[in-house]
């Protein structure tokens, strides 16, 4: 898919903004995702290859906002409301009604001034979770449904609750638990 064009399957009669790059075999549900998009960065949104951005996702970027989504990501329904930089690592999964925002009371156009948000590779964010300014989620971590994340999440941790706390851990790649063959 190339930027500056309309999507063949789209119902919404606007072009994808020129400063958006969508990788090979990736899917974007509609240019409606850019309803409130105001980014003037050289590249406002970059989506890697083989990633899906599905119905209910919105890029609510202010003029300085930037989003980078990796390869093989599934963004089921994330609202990204930022005037800073948000990075989502390869293989990450974000469920529906998730909000990543600069501020608690964020509004479209990203007037917030907080630091950005960074998710490492292979993160899983549960439905209705909220990730706020400055949060870094480590590789392989899991954010539980409806968690409100204000502090960094260590790699391979499971966090849940409001405010989110570490409640467990997932197995690190290459580390095997005993008992198996």
């Amino acid at each position, binding site marked *: 898919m190339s930027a500056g064009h309309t999507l063949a399957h789209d119902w919404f009669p606007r072009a994808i903004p020129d400063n958006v790059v969508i990788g090979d075999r990736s899917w974007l549900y509609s240019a409606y995702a850019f309803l409130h998009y105001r980014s003037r960065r050289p590249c406002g949104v970059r989506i890697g290859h083989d990633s899906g951005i599905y119905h209910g996702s919105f890029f609510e970027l202010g003029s300085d906002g930037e989003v980078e989504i990796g390869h093989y990501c599934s963004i089921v329904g994330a609202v990204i409301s930022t005037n800073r930089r948000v990075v989502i690592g390869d293989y990450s999964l974000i469920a529906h009604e998730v909000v990543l925002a600069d501020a*608690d*009371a964020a509004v479209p156009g990203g007037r917030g001034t907080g630091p950005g948000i960074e998710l490492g590779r292979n993160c899983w964010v549960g439905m209705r979770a*909220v990730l706020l300014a400055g949060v870094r989620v480590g590789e392989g971590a899991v954010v539980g449904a409806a968690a409100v994340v204000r502090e960094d999440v260590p790699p391979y941790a499971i966090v849940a609750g409001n405010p989110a706390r570490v409640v467990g851990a997932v197995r690190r790649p290459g580390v095997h638990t005993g008992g198996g063959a």
Partner: protein
Amino acid sequence: MDAADVTGDWDYRTLPANVRIGEGCYLERRGSFGRFRSSRDPGLTLGRSVQVYTWTTFNVEPSGAVEVGDGSVLVGAVFMCAGDITLGRRVTVSYCVTIADSDFHPLDPELRTRDAVANAPEGDRSTRPPLEVRPIHIEDDVWIGIGAIVLKGVRIGRGARVEAGAVVTRDVAVGATIAGNPARVVDRGVSP
């Protein structure tokens, strides 16, 4: 779908006569008003320069009325209203917020059975048990964070901050910051 219906370019004069819109309002999505069925007059009042974004919905029962003051921004405010909900001036309501002035069903199990029968697709809704409805008042300059829920009978004082994900079940003092479920004061703010 007609794009004008989701980009604020539809004809606001097509709203019901009991909806009063101030000058300079931006009403992004026509469907925000699709479940507005107040029989009061006015049933919805928006002050001057109120911005209503796509995720907001006014679910207003015949007995309900909502009032929003000048300069307020409603991003994703889902109103569930059977009585009175008022927002002051310059109130910000962020994404995925619900404001409900009733539980909309009785707590008592036997009454709830009657309610279920009355609410069936071909049921007689006039036989529903009465709802408990208590007004919500949100004063000037309040911020309501992402995913918060504000429940019946609550008054949120001027300049208060409701943090993301808070579930507000009790009054909030002027200038206070509250967070959590149920919401607790995390900062009392400056005394007035």
